[in-house]
Protein backbone atom coordinates (compact mmCIF):
# COMPACT_ATOMS: atom_id res chain seq x y z
CA UNK A 1 0.00 0.00 0.00
CA UNK A 2 2.89 2.27 -0.46
CA UNK A 3 2.42 5.16 -2.80
CA UNK A 4 5.00 3.58 -5.06
CA UNK A 5 2.98 1.31 -7.21
CA UNK A 6 3.34 -1.28 -9.88
CA UNK A 7 4.05 1.04 -12.77
CA UNK A 8 6.59 3.10 -10.94
CA UNK A 9 8.54 0.02 -10.05
CA UNK A 10 8.55 -1.21 -13.62
CA UNK A 11 9.93 2.11 -14.72
CA UNK A 12 12.73 1.99 -12.22
CA UNK A 13 13.77 -1.26 -13.77
CA UNK A 14 13.56 0.11 -17.25
CA UNK A 15 15.38 3.26 -16.34
CA UNK A 16 18.25 1.12 -15.18
CA UNK A 17 18.15 -0.59 -18.51
CA UNK A 18 18.17 2.67 -20.42
CA UNK A 19 21.22 3.80 -18.53
CA UNK A 20 23.03 0.62 -19.43
CA UNK A 21 22.17 1.06 -23.07
CA UNK A 22 23.58 4.55 -23.23
CA UNK A 23 26.92 3.57 -24.89
CA UNK A 24 25.10 2.07 -27.88
CA UNK A 25 23.50 5.42 -28.73
CA UNK A 26 23.43 4.79 -32.41
CA UNK A 27 21.58 1.51 -32.06
CA UNK A 28 19.14 3.12 -29.64
CA UNK A 29 18.34 5.86 -32.16
CA UNK A 30 17.69 3.34 -34.89
CA UNK A 31 15.39 1.41 -32.59
CA UNK A 32 13.56 4.58 -31.64
CA UNK A 33 12.97 5.40 -35.28
CA UNK A 34 11.74 1.86 -35.88
CA UNK A 35 9.31 2.12 -33.01
CA UNK A 36 8.15 5.45 -34.33
CA UNK A 37 7.35 3.80 -37.62
CA UNK A 38 5.35 1.18 -35.77
CA UNK A 39 3.52 4.03 -34.09
CA UNK A 40 2.71 5.68 -37.39
CA UNK A 41 1.44 2.41 -38.81
CA UNK A 42 -0.70 1.90 -35.72
CA UNK A 43 -2.04 5.44 -36.00
CA UNK A 44 -3.01 4.80 -39.61
CA UNK A 45 -4.98 1.69 -38.65
CA UNK A 46 -6.62 3.53 -35.78
CA UNK A 47 -7.60 6.30 -38.20
CA UNK A 48 -9.27 3.68 -40.40
CA UNK A 49 -11.19 2.30 -37.42
CA UNK A 50 -12.29 5.78 -36.35
CA UNK A 51 -13.31 6.69 -39.90
CA UNK A 52 -15.32 3.51 -40.32
CA UNK A 53 -17.13 4.21 -37.06
CA UNK A 54 -17.87 7.82 -38.02
CA UNK A 55 -18.95 6.91 -41.54
CA UNK A 56 -20.82 3.80 -40.40
CA UNK A 57 -24.13 4.72 -42.10
CA UNK A 58 -22.30 5.20 -45.42
CA UNK A 59 -20.04 2.16 -45.49
CA UNK A 60 -21.99 -0.48 -43.57
CA UNK A 61 -23.41 -2.91 -46.15
CA UNK A 62 -26.60 -3.56 -44.14
CA UNK A 63 -28.75 -2.01 -41.45
CA UNK A 64 -27.16 -3.26 -38.21
CA UNK A 65 -30.60 -3.82 -36.67
CA UNK A 66 -32.26 -5.44 -39.69
CA UNK A 67 -33.42 -8.91 -38.63
CA UNK A 68 -33.57 -11.64 -41.24
CA UNK A 69 -34.48 -14.96 -39.68
CA UNK A 70 -34.06 -16.86 -42.97
CA UNK A 71 -30.37 -16.00 -43.01
CA UNK A 72 -29.69 -16.58 -39.34
CA UNK A 73 -26.31 -17.97 -38.23
CA UNK A 74 -24.88 -17.75 -41.74
CA UNK A 75 -21.11 -18.43 -41.68
CA UNK A 76 -18.52 -15.98 -43.06
CA UNK A 77 -18.23 -15.68 -46.86
CA UNK A 78 -15.14 -17.91 -47.20
CA UNK A 79 -16.74 -20.89 -45.46
CA UNK A 80 -19.12 -23.48 -46.87
CA UNK A 81 -22.59 -22.01 -46.94
CA UNK A 82 -21.34 -18.43 -46.62
CA UNK A 83 -22.41 -15.80 -49.10
CA UNK A 84 -20.77 -12.60 -50.33
CA UNK A 85 -23.81 -10.78 -49.08
CA UNK A 86 -22.70 -11.23 -45.47
CA UNK A 87 -18.90 -11.10 -45.49
CA UNK A 88 -18.49 -12.02 -41.83
CA UNK A 89 -21.70 -14.02 -41.57
CA UNK A 90 -24.79 -13.26 -39.53
CA UNK A 91 -25.85 -13.65 -35.91
CA UNK A 92 -28.65 -15.58 -34.22
CA UNK A 93 -31.40 -13.45 -35.72
CA UNK A 94 -29.77 -12.95 -39.09
CA UNK A 95 -28.26 -9.48 -38.58
CA UNK A 96 -25.17 -8.74 -40.65
CA UNK A 97 -22.12 -9.14 -38.42
CA UNK A 98 -19.85 -6.81 -40.38
CA UNK A 99 -22.35 -3.97 -40.25
CA UNK A 100 -22.88 -4.49 -36.54
CA UNK A 101 -19.15 -4.43 -35.97
CA UNK A 102 -18.75 -1.18 -37.87
CA UNK A 103 -21.51 0.41 -35.81
CA UNK A 104 -20.25 -1.22 -32.61
CA UNK A 105 -17.00 0.71 -32.88
CA UNK A 106 -18.93 3.92 -32.26
CA UNK A 107 -19.85 2.88 -28.73
CA UNK A 108 -16.35 1.73 -27.80
CA UNK A 109 -14.65 4.84 -29.16
CA UNK A 110 -17.13 7.29 -27.67
CA UNK A 111 -17.04 5.65 -24.24
CA UNK A 112 -13.25 5.31 -24.37
CA UNK A 113 -12.58 8.93 -25.26
CA UNK A 114 -15.29 10.47 -23.07
CA UNK A 115 -14.38 8.45 -19.98
CA UNK A 116 -10.71 9.25 -20.42
CA UNK A 117 -11.38 12.98 -20.71
CA UNK A 118 -13.41 12.80 -17.52
CA UNK A 119 -10.86 10.82 -15.52
CA UNK A 120 -7.94 12.88 -16.83
CA UNK A 121 -9.68 16.07 -15.73
CA UNK A 122 -10.37 14.77 -12.22
CA UNK A 123 -6.98 13.09 -11.87
CA UNK A 124 -4.94 16.04 -13.12
CA UNK A 125 -6.72 18.53 -10.86
CA UNK A 126 -6.32 16.32 -7.79
CA UNK A 127 -2.72 15.46 -8.70
CA UNK A 128 -1.83 19.14 -9.10
CA UNK A 129 -3.47 19.90 -5.75
CA UNK A 130 -1.72 17.06 -3.94
CA UNK A 131 1.68 17.83 -5.45
CA UNK A 132 1.54 21.61 -5.11
CA UNK A 133 0.05 21.99 -1.65
CA UNK A 134 1.47 18.83 -0.05
CA UNK A 135 0.74 18.19 3.63
CA UNK A 136 -2.79 17.24 4.54
CA UNK A 137 -4.22 17.80 1.08
CA UNK A 138 -1.61 15.45 -0.28
CA UNK A 139 -2.31 12.83 2.40
CA UNK A 140 -6.04 12.91 1.81
CA UNK A 141 -5.76 12.66 -1.96
CA UNK A 142 -3.11 9.96 -1.89
CA UNK A 143 -5.15 7.90 0.57
CA UNK A 144 -7.97 8.15 -1.94
CA UNK A 145 -5.59 7.01 -4.67
CA UNK A 146 -4.48 4.03 -2.57
CA UNK A 147 -8.03 3.03 -1.80
CA UNK A 148 -9.00 3.21 -5.45
CA UNK A 149 -5.92 1.32 -6.60
CA UNK A 150 -6.47 -1.42 -4.04
CA UNK A 151 -9.92 -1.95 -5.40
CA UNK A 152 -10.12 -3.87 -8.64
CA UNK A 153 -11.44 -1.42 -11.22
CA UNK A 154 -13.81 -4.10 -12.51
CA UNK A 155 -15.41 -4.66 -9.13
CA UNK A 156 -15.98 -0.96 -8.59
CA UNK A 157 -17.52 -0.54 -12.01
CA UNK A 158 -19.79 -3.55 -11.43
CA UNK A 159 -20.99 -2.26 -8.07
CA UNK A 160 -21.72 1.24 -9.32
CA UNK A 161 -23.48 0.09 -12.49
CA UNK A 162 -25.56 -2.25 -10.35
CA UNK A 163 -26.94 0.72 -8.45
CA UNK A 164 -27.14 3.28 -11.24
CA UNK A 165 -28.44 0.89 -13.87
CA UNK A 166 -26.84 0.29 -17.27
CA UNK A 167 -26.73 3.05 -19.86
CA UNK A 168 -24.21 4.78 -22.09
CA UNK A 169 -23.97 7.87 -19.87
CA UNK A 170 -23.69 5.86 -16.65
CA UNK A 171 -20.93 3.78 -18.16
CA UNK A 172 -18.97 6.89 -19.15
CA UNK A 173 -19.42 8.30 -15.64
CA UNK A 174 -18.39 5.08 -13.90
CA UNK A 175 -15.34 4.42 -16.05
CA UNK A 176 -14.41 8.10 -15.95
CA UNK A 177 -14.68 8.44 -12.19
CA UNK A 178 -12.92 5.12 -11.52
CA UNK A 179 -9.93 5.93 -13.71
CA UNK A 180 -8.55 9.10 -12.10
CA UNK A 181 -5.92 7.67 -9.66
CA UNK A 182 -3.31 6.89 -12.31
CA UNK A 183 -3.29 10.51 -13.53
CA UNK A 184 -3.28 11.86 -9.99
CA UNK A 185 -0.26 9.78 -9.07
CA UNK A 186 1.88 10.74 -12.03
CA UNK A 187 0.86 14.41 -11.98
CA UNK A 188 1.51 14.64 -8.25
CA UNK A 189 5.03 13.24 -8.57
CA UNK A 190 5.90 15.56 -11.46
CA UNK A 191 4.35 18.57 -9.75
CA UNK A 192 6.39 17.96 -6.61
CA UNK A 193 9.56 17.97 -8.69
CA UNK A 194 8.64 21.05 -10.72
CA UNK A 195 7.48 22.96 -7.66
CA UNK A 196 11.08 23.22 -6.49
CA UNK A 197 12.40 24.60 -9.79
CA UNK A 198 13.69 28.16 -10.08
CA UNK A 199 10.99 29.47 -12.41
CA UNK A 200 8.32 28.55 -9.89
CA UNK A 201 10.23 30.26 -7.11
CA UNK A 202 10.65 33.29 -9.36
CA UNK A 203 6.92 33.31 -10.06
CA UNK A 204 6.18 33.19 -6.39
CA UNK A 205 8.66 35.98 -5.70
CA UNK A 206 6.87 38.08 -8.32
CA UNK A 207 3.67 37.59 -6.34
CA UNK A 208 1.79 35.27 -8.67
CA UNK A 209 -1.30 33.59 -7.25
CA UNK A 210 -1.29 29.87 -6.53
CA UNK A 211 -3.77 29.24 -9.32
CA UNK A 212 -1.61 31.07 -11.83
CA UNK A 213 1.53 29.22 -10.82
CA UNK A 214 -0.23 25.85 -10.96
CA UNK A 215 -2.02 26.34 -14.25
CA UNK A 216 0.33 28.62 -16.17
CA UNK A 217 3.71 27.46 -14.93
CA UNK A 218 3.44 23.88 -13.74
CA UNK A 219 0.63 22.34 -15.75
CA UNK A 220 2.08 23.04 -19.24
CA UNK A 221 5.10 20.92 -18.32
CA UNK A 222 2.88 17.94 -17.70
CA UNK A 223 1.03 17.91 -21.00
CA UNK A 224 3.11 15.23 -22.71
CA UNK A 225 2.92 12.86 -19.74
CA UNK A 226 -0.83 13.30 -19.54
CA UNK A 227 -1.29 12.77 -23.27
CA UNK A 228 0.65 9.50 -23.12
CA UNK A 229 -1.27 8.11 -20.13
CA UNK A 230 -4.57 9.19 -21.62
CA UNK A 231 -3.82 7.42 -24.89
CA UNK A 232 -2.92 4.19 -23.13
CA UNK A 233 -5.95 4.50 -20.85
CA UNK A 234 -8.34 4.70 -23.82
CA UNK A 235 -7.38 1.10 -24.58
CA UNK A 236 -8.02 0.02 -20.99
CA UNK A 237 -11.39 1.73 -20.93
CA UNK A 238 -12.42 0.10 -24.21
CA UNK A 239 -11.65 -3.34 -22.76
CA UNK A 240 -13.58 -2.59 -19.58
CA UNK A 241 -16.52 -1.14 -21.43
CA UNK A 242 -16.76 -4.23 -23.57
CA UNK A 243 -16.54 -6.44 -20.50
CA UNK A 244 -19.45 -4.63 -18.87
CA UNK A 245 -21.47 -4.87 -22.09
CA UNK A 246 -20.44 -8.52 -22.35
CA UNK A 247 -22.02 -9.15 -18.93
CA UNK A 248 -25.16 -7.33 -20.03
CA UNK A 249 -24.43 -4.45 -17.65
CA UNK A 250 -23.31 -1.99 -20.30
CA UNK A 251 -24.77 -1.04 -23.64
CA UNK A 252 -28.11 -2.79 -23.95
CA UNK A 253 -29.14 -4.81 -27.00
CA UNK A 254 -30.18 -4.37 -29.74
CA UNK A 255 -27.72 -1.44 -29.96
CA UNK A 256 -24.57 -3.04 -31.33
CA UNK A 257 -21.45 -2.79 -29.19
CA UNK A 258 -18.44 -5.10 -29.44
CA UNK A 259 -18.93 -6.24 -25.86
CA UNK A 260 -22.61 -7.19 -26.06
CA UNK A 261 -22.08 -8.86 -29.46
CA UNK A 262 -19.44 -11.01 -27.81
CA UNK A 263 -21.79 -11.77 -24.93
CA UNK A 264 -24.58 -12.80 -27.29
CA UNK A 265 -22.17 -14.82 -29.39
CA UNK A 266 -21.04 -16.79 -26.37
CA UNK A 267 -24.39 -18.57 -26.30
CA UNK A 268 -23.90 -19.76 -29.88
CA UNK A 269 -20.22 -20.59 -29.76
CA UNK A 270 -20.90 -24.31 -29.99
CA UNK A 271 -21.86 -24.10 -33.67
CA UNK A 272 -21.29 -20.50 -34.74
CA UNK A 273 -17.87 -19.44 -33.54
CA UNK A 274 -17.78 -16.31 -35.72
CA UNK A 275 -20.34 -14.35 -33.71
CA UNK A 276 -18.07 -14.15 -30.66
CA UNK A 277 -14.77 -14.19 -32.51
CA UNK A 278 -14.98 -11.13 -34.77
CA UNK A 279 -16.13 -8.55 -32.21
CA UNK A 280 -13.35 -9.76 -29.91
CA UNK A 281 -10.89 -9.39 -32.74
CA UNK A 282 -12.09 -5.83 -33.23
CA UNK A 283 -11.46 -5.04 -29.56
CA UNK A 284 -8.05 -6.70 -29.77
CA UNK A 285 -6.92 -4.79 -32.87
CA UNK A 286 -8.20 -1.47 -31.55
CA UNK A 287 -6.53 -1.77 -28.16
CA UNK A 288 -3.35 -3.09 -29.79
CA UNK A 289 -2.97 -0.13 -32.14
CA UNK A 290 -3.83 2.33 -29.36
CA UNK A 291 -1.16 0.77 -27.13
CA UNK A 292 1.44 0.82 -29.91
CA UNK A 293 0.58 4.43 -30.64
CA UNK A 294 0.81 5.36 -26.97
CA UNK A 295 4.20 3.70 -26.63
CA UNK A 296 5.72 5.45 -29.59
CA UNK A 297 4.10 8.71 -28.55
CA UNK A 298 6.01 8.36 -25.30
CA UNK A 299 9.25 7.67 -27.15
CA UNK A 300 8.67 10.63 -29.39
CA UNK A 301 7.63 13.16 -26.77
CA UNK A 302 10.17 12.17 -24.18
CA UNK A 303 12.12 8.92 -24.27
CA UNK A 304 13.02 9.26 -20.60
CA UNK A 305 9.47 9.73 -19.44
CA UNK A 306 8.85 7.81 -16.26
CA UNK A 307 5.62 6.09 -17.19
Amino acid sequence: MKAVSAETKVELGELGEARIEAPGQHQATVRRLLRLRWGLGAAAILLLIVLSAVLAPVIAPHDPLAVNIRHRLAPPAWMDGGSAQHLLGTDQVGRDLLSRMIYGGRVSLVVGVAAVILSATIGVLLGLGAGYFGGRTDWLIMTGVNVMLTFPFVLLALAVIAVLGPSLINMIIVLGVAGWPIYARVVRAETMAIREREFVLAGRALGMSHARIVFRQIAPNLVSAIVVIATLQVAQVIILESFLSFLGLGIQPPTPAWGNMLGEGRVYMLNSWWIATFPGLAIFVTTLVINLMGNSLRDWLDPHMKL
Partner: protein
Amino acid sequence: MRRYLTRQLVQLVVVILGISLLAFTILHVLGDPVLLLLPQNAGKEEFERYRHLLGLDQPLYVQYWKFLSRAVLGDFGKSWYADTPAFRLVVERMPPTIYLTFAGLLVALLIALPLGILAALRRHSWVDSLCTAVAVAGQATPLFWLGIMLIIVFAVRLKVLPASGYGTWQHFLLPSFCLGAALAPITMRLVRSGVIEVMNMEFIKTARAKGVAEPMVVVKHAFRNACIPVITVLGLQFGQLLGGAIITETVFAWPGVATLTVESIRNQDFPVVQCAVVMLALVIVVVNLLVDVAVAMIDPRIRAGA
Protein backbone atom coordinates in the same frame (compact mmCIF):
# COMPACT_ATOMS: atom_id res chain seq x y z
CA MET B 1 11.09 -3.52 11.88
CA ARG B 2 8.46 -2.78 14.52
CA ARG B 3 8.09 0.84 13.43
CA TYR B 4 7.76 -0.28 9.86
CA LEU B 5 5.05 -2.79 10.79
CA THR B 6 3.10 -0.23 12.81
CA ARG B 7 3.12 2.22 9.94
CA GLN B 8 1.95 -0.47 7.54
CA LEU B 9 -0.87 -1.49 9.91
CA VAL B 10 -2.08 2.08 10.31
CA GLN B 11 -2.16 2.44 6.55
CA LEU B 12 -4.06 -0.83 6.31
CA VAL B 13 -6.77 0.42 8.66
CA VAL B 14 -7.07 3.70 6.76
CA VAL B 15 -7.42 1.90 3.44
CA ILE B 16 -10.02 -0.51 4.82
CA LEU B 17 -12.02 2.39 6.24
CA GLY B 18 -11.82 4.09 2.86
CA ILE B 19 -13.06 0.98 1.12
CA SER B 20 -15.96 0.52 3.51
CA LEU B 21 -16.88 4.17 2.95
CA LEU B 22 -16.78 3.56 -0.80
CA ALA B 23 -18.97 0.46 -0.53
CA PHE B 24 -21.42 2.34 1.68
CA THR B 25 -21.49 5.37 -0.60
CA ILE B 26 -22.23 3.29 -3.68
CA LEU B 27 -25.43 1.88 -2.23
CA HIS B 28 -26.66 4.65 0.04
CA VAL B 29 -25.67 7.84 -1.72
CA LEU B 30 -25.74 6.88 -5.39
CA GLY B 31 -28.78 4.67 -5.10
CA ASP B 32 -31.79 4.42 -2.86
CA PRO B 33 -32.10 0.94 -1.32
CA VAL B 34 -35.84 1.34 -0.77
CA LEU B 35 -36.39 2.20 -4.40
CA LEU B 36 -34.56 -0.98 -5.33
CA LEU B 37 -36.33 -3.07 -2.72
CA LEU B 38 -39.95 -2.12 -3.22
CA PRO B 39 -42.02 -2.65 -6.36
CA GLN B 40 -42.40 0.45 -8.49
CA ASN B 41 -46.12 0.83 -7.81
CA ALA B 42 -45.69 0.92 -4.01
CA GLY B 43 -47.37 3.85 -2.29
CA LYS B 44 -45.65 6.78 -0.65
CA GLU B 45 -46.52 5.59 2.86
CA GLU B 46 -45.02 2.23 2.08
CA PHE B 47 -41.77 3.92 1.11
CA GLU B 48 -41.69 5.97 4.29
CA ARG B 49 -42.43 2.93 6.42
CA TYR B 50 -39.63 0.94 4.84
CA ARG B 51 -37.25 3.85 5.03
CA HIS B 52 -37.92 4.06 8.76
CA LEU B 53 -37.73 0.28 9.15
CA LEU B 54 -34.29 0.12 7.54
CA GLY B 55 -33.10 3.17 9.43
CA LEU B 56 -32.66 5.12 6.21
CA ASP B 57 -34.36 8.22 7.62
CA GLN B 58 -31.40 8.77 9.91
CA PRO B 59 -28.48 11.03 8.97
CA LEU B 60 -25.92 9.44 6.67
CA TYR B 61 -23.10 9.42 9.20
CA VAL B 62 -25.29 7.52 11.68
CA GLN B 63 -26.13 5.00 8.97
CA TYR B 64 -22.48 4.63 8.03
CA TRP B 65 -21.51 4.09 11.65
CA LYS B 66 -24.17 1.39 12.00
CA PHE B 67 -23.06 -0.25 8.77
CA LEU B 68 -19.44 -0.18 9.88
CA SER B 69 -19.98 -1.47 13.41
CA ARG B 70 -22.01 -4.38 12.09
CA ALA B 71 -19.62 -5.09 9.21
CA VAL B 72 -16.72 -5.42 11.63
CA LEU B 73 -18.58 -8.36 13.16
CA GLY B 74 -19.22 -9.87 9.76
CA ASP B 75 -22.86 -8.79 9.73
CA PHE B 76 -23.76 -7.35 6.35
CA GLY B 77 -27.45 -8.11 6.73
CA LYS B 78 -29.50 -10.83 5.14
CA SER B 79 -29.51 -11.47 1.44
CA TRP B 80 -32.67 -9.97 -0.08
CA TYR B 81 -32.92 -12.89 -2.43
CA ALA B 82 -31.95 -16.01 -0.51
CA ASP B 83 -32.88 -16.05 3.16
CA THR B 84 -29.28 -16.39 4.38
CA PRO B 85 -26.80 -13.93 5.86
CA ALA B 86 -24.87 -12.24 3.04
CA PHE B 87 -21.60 -12.89 4.85
CA ARG B 88 -22.10 -16.66 4.80
CA LEU B 89 -22.96 -16.67 1.10
CA VAL B 90 -19.80 -14.75 0.29
CA VAL B 91 -17.50 -16.78 2.53
CA GLU B 92 -18.78 -20.02 1.02
CA ARG B 93 -17.82 -18.79 -2.44
CA MET B 94 -14.41 -17.50 -1.41
CA PRO B 95 -12.27 -20.68 -1.75
CA PRO B 96 -12.82 -21.24 -5.49
CA THR B 97 -11.88 -17.62 -6.18
CA ILE B 98 -8.71 -17.91 -4.13
CA TYR B 99 -7.74 -21.22 -5.75
CA LEU B 100 -8.26 -19.75 -9.20
CA THR B 101 -6.22 -16.67 -8.32
CA PHE B 102 -3.27 -18.72 -7.15
CA ALA B 103 -3.49 -21.14 -10.06
CA GLY B 104 -3.43 -18.12 -12.39
CA LEU B 105 -0.44 -16.70 -10.56
CA LEU B 106 1.37 -20.02 -10.89
CA VAL B 107 0.71 -20.18 -14.64
CA ALA B 108 1.87 -16.60 -15.05
CA LEU B 109 5.12 -17.39 -13.27
CA LEU B 110 5.63 -20.58 -15.29
CA ILE B 111 5.36 -18.54 -18.48
CA ALA B 112 7.09 -15.38 -17.33
CA LEU B 113 10.11 -16.63 -15.41
CA PRO B 114 11.82 -18.74 -18.11
CA LEU B 115 10.94 -16.34 -20.92
CA GLY B 116 11.89 -13.26 -18.93
CA ILE B 117 15.27 -14.67 -17.88
CA LEU B 118 16.00 -15.93 -21.37
CA ALA B 119 15.09 -12.57 -22.88
CA ALA B 120 17.36 -10.81 -20.41
CA LEU B 121 20.32 -13.09 -21.07
CA ARG B 122 19.91 -12.97 -24.86
CA ARG B 123 19.03 -9.36 -25.32
CA HIS B 124 18.06 -8.20 -28.82
CA SER B 125 17.91 -11.83 -29.94
CA TRP B 126 14.84 -13.43 -31.46
CA VAL B 127 13.77 -14.70 -28.02
CA ASP B 128 13.77 -11.13 -26.76
CA SER B 129 11.78 -9.86 -29.74
CA LEU B 130 9.33 -12.72 -29.39
CA CYS B 131 8.83 -11.86 -25.72
CA THR B 132 8.20 -8.22 -26.53
CA ALA B 133 5.70 -9.17 -29.23
CA VAL B 134 3.89 -11.58 -26.91
CA ALA B 135 3.81 -8.95 -24.18
CA VAL B 136 2.38 -6.26 -26.46
CA ALA B 137 -0.23 -8.63 -27.87
CA GLY B 138 -1.05 -9.99 -24.43
CA GLN B 139 -1.75 -6.55 -23.05
CA ALA B 140 -4.25 -5.85 -25.81
CA THR B 141 -6.16 -9.12 -25.49
CA PRO B 142 -9.43 -8.85 -23.60
CA LEU B 143 -9.39 -11.58 -20.98
CA PHE B 144 -13.00 -12.59 -21.51
CA TRP B 145 -12.47 -12.96 -25.24
CA LEU B 146 -9.37 -15.07 -24.72
CA GLY B 147 -11.45 -17.28 -22.42
CA ILE B 148 -14.12 -17.75 -25.05
CA MET B 149 -11.54 -18.52 -27.73
CA LEU B 150 -9.96 -21.12 -25.43
CA ILE B 151 -13.37 -22.69 -24.88
CA ILE B 152 -14.08 -22.76 -28.62
CA VAL B 153 -10.73 -24.38 -29.41
CA PHE B 154 -10.27 -26.82 -26.52
CA ALA B 155 -13.79 -27.63 -25.43
CA VAL B 156 -15.88 -27.25 -28.58
CA ARG B 157 -13.45 -28.23 -31.36
CA LEU B 158 -10.93 -30.57 -29.76
CA LYS B 159 -13.28 -31.70 -26.99
CA VAL B 160 -10.37 -32.33 -24.63
CA LEU B 161 -11.25 -30.05 -21.74
CA PRO B 162 -14.49 -29.05 -20.01
CA ALA B 163 -15.86 -25.65 -21.08
CA SER B 164 -17.00 -24.64 -17.64
CA GLY B 165 -17.68 -25.86 -14.15
CA TYR B 166 -15.63 -26.76 -11.13
CA GLY B 167 -14.48 -29.91 -9.41
CA THR B 168 -11.64 -31.82 -11.07
CA TRP B 169 -8.16 -30.66 -12.06
CA GLN B 170 -9.23 -30.54 -15.70
CA HIS B 171 -11.64 -27.77 -14.78
CA PHE B 172 -8.71 -25.74 -13.57
CA LEU B 173 -6.68 -25.84 -16.78
CA LEU B 174 -8.51 -23.40 -19.06
CA PRO B 175 -9.44 -20.77 -16.46
CA SER B 176 -6.03 -20.69 -14.85
CA PHE B 177 -4.26 -20.54 -18.20
CA CYS B 178 -6.58 -17.71 -19.25
CA LEU B 179 -5.88 -15.74 -16.09
CA GLY B 180 -2.17 -16.57 -16.13
CA ALA B 181 -1.81 -15.45 -19.73
CA ALA B 182 -3.25 -12.10 -18.75
CA LEU B 183 -0.76 -11.55 -15.96
CA ALA B 184 2.27 -13.02 -17.75
CA PRO B 185 3.21 -10.04 -19.99
CA ILE B 186 3.83 -7.55 -17.18
CA THR B 187 5.56 -10.18 -15.04
CA MET B 188 7.80 -11.12 -17.96
CA ARG B 189 8.83 -7.51 -18.51
CA LEU B 190 9.63 -7.18 -14.81
CA VAL B 191 11.71 -10.33 -14.68
CA ARG B 192 13.55 -9.25 -17.80
CA SER B 193 14.44 -5.77 -16.57
CA GLY B 194 15.19 -7.10 -13.09
CA VAL B 195 17.66 -9.68 -14.36
CA ILE B 196 19.27 -7.21 -16.78
CA GLU B 197 19.83 -4.75 -13.98
CA VAL B 198 21.27 -7.33 -11.62
CA MET B 199 23.54 -8.91 -14.25
CA ASN B 200 25.44 -5.63 -14.50
CA MET B 201 26.15 -5.39 -10.81
CA GLU B 202 29.51 -5.74 -9.16
CA PHE B 203 28.79 -8.91 -7.24
CA ILE B 204 28.02 -10.75 -10.46
CA LYS B 205 31.42 -9.75 -11.79
CA THR B 206 32.93 -10.92 -8.53
CA ALA B 207 31.17 -14.27 -8.78
CA ARG B 208 32.37 -14.70 -12.36
CA ALA B 209 35.89 -13.67 -11.42
CA LYS B 210 35.84 -16.27 -8.69
CA GLY B 211 35.16 -18.82 -11.38
CA VAL B 212 31.57 -19.63 -10.52
CA ALA B 213 29.92 -21.47 -13.38
CA GLU B 214 27.62 -19.29 -15.50
CA PRO B 215 24.37 -21.21 -14.81
CA MET B 216 25.13 -20.88 -11.11
CA VAL B 217 25.71 -17.15 -11.49
CA VAL B 218 22.35 -16.73 -13.19
CA VAL B 219 20.32 -18.89 -10.83
CA LYS B 220 21.91 -18.24 -7.48
CA HIS B 221 23.19 -14.71 -7.74
CA ALA B 222 21.18 -12.90 -10.38
CA PHE B 223 17.77 -14.47 -10.15
CA ARG B 224 17.50 -14.26 -6.38
CA ASN B 225 18.16 -10.56 -6.41
CA ALA B 226 15.88 -9.99 -9.36
CA CYS B 227 13.09 -11.59 -7.34
CA ILE B 228 12.61 -8.63 -5.04
CA PRO B 229 11.03 -6.22 -7.54
CA VAL B 230 9.04 -9.09 -9.03
CA ILE B 231 7.55 -10.06 -5.66
CA THR B 232 6.77 -6.46 -4.79
CA VAL B 233 5.00 -5.75 -8.01
CA LEU B 234 3.16 -9.06 -8.03
CA GLY B 235 1.90 -8.22 -4.56
CA LEU B 236 0.72 -4.81 -5.68
CA GLN B 237 -0.78 -6.40 -8.77
CA PHE B 238 -2.79 -8.76 -6.62
CA GLY B 239 -5.83 -6.52 -6.87
CA GLN B 240 -5.55 -6.61 -10.65
CA LEU B 241 -5.07 -10.36 -10.51
CA LEU B 242 -8.23 -10.73 -8.48
CA GLY B 243 -9.96 -8.40 -10.93
CA GLY B 244 -8.82 -10.75 -13.68
CA ALA B 245 -10.13 -13.71 -11.68
CA ILE B 246 -13.50 -11.94 -11.54
CA ILE B 247 -13.58 -11.69 -15.32
CA THR B 248 -12.36 -15.26 -15.77
CA GLU B 249 -14.99 -16.59 -13.39
CA THR B 250 -17.83 -15.06 -15.35
CA VAL B 251 -16.56 -16.61 -18.59
CA PHE B 252 -16.06 -20.12 -17.23
CA ALA B 253 -19.05 -20.16 -14.86
CA TRP B 254 -16.62 -20.67 -11.98
CA PRO B 255 -18.55 -20.86 -8.69
CA GLY B 256 -16.57 -18.13 -6.92
CA VAL B 257 -17.30 -14.75 -5.39
CA ALA B 258 -17.35 -13.00 -8.75
CA THR B 259 -20.13 -15.09 -10.25
CA LEU B 260 -22.00 -14.61 -6.97
CA THR B 261 -21.51 -10.84 -7.29
CA VAL B 262 -22.73 -10.75 -10.87
CA GLU B 263 -25.73 -12.94 -10.00
CA SER B 264 -26.51 -10.69 -7.04
CA ILE B 265 -26.29 -7.61 -9.23
CA ARG B 266 -28.77 -9.19 -11.64
CA ASN B 267 -31.07 -10.02 -8.68
CA GLN B 268 -30.53 -6.56 -7.18
CA ASP B 269 -29.35 -8.27 -4.01
CA PHE B 270 -27.34 -5.43 -2.52
CA PRO B 271 -26.31 -6.77 0.89
CA VAL B 272 -24.48 -9.55 -0.93
CA VAL B 273 -22.89 -7.17 -3.44
CA GLN B 274 -21.73 -4.91 -0.63
CA CYS B 275 -20.37 -7.80 1.40
CA ALA B 276 -18.56 -9.32 -1.59
CA VAL B 277 -16.96 -5.99 -2.46
CA VAL B 278 -15.73 -5.40 1.09
CA MET B 279 -14.48 -8.96 1.54
CA LEU B 280 -12.56 -9.01 -1.75
CA ALA B 281 -11.01 -5.67 -0.91
CA LEU B 282 -10.05 -7.02 2.49
CA VAL B 283 -8.29 -9.99 0.92
CA ILE B 284 -6.37 -7.67 -1.39
CA VAL B 285 -5.32 -5.35 1.40
CA VAL B 286 -4.13 -8.19 3.60
CA VAL B 287 -2.15 -9.80 0.76
CA ASN B 288 -0.57 -6.44 -0.03
CA LEU B 289 0.46 -6.08 3.59
CA LEU B 290 1.95 -9.59 3.71
CA VAL B 291 3.93 -8.93 0.54
CA ASP B 292 5.21 -5.60 1.88
CA VAL B 293 6.36 -7.24 5.08
CA ALA B 294 7.93 -10.19 3.27
CA VAL B 295 9.85 -7.89 0.96
CA ALA B 296 10.97 -5.74 3.86
CA MET B 297 12.26 -8.85 5.58
CA ILE B 298 14.22 -9.92 2.51
CA ASP B 299 15.56 -6.49 1.67
CA PRO B 300 16.72 -4.29 4.58
CA ARG B 301 17.02 -1.26 2.27
CA ILE B 302 13.25 -1.03 1.99
CA ARG B 303 12.75 -1.10 5.76
CA ALA B 304 15.13 1.80 6.15
CA GLY B 305 13.87 3.79 3.19
CA ALA B 306 10.13 3.45 3.65
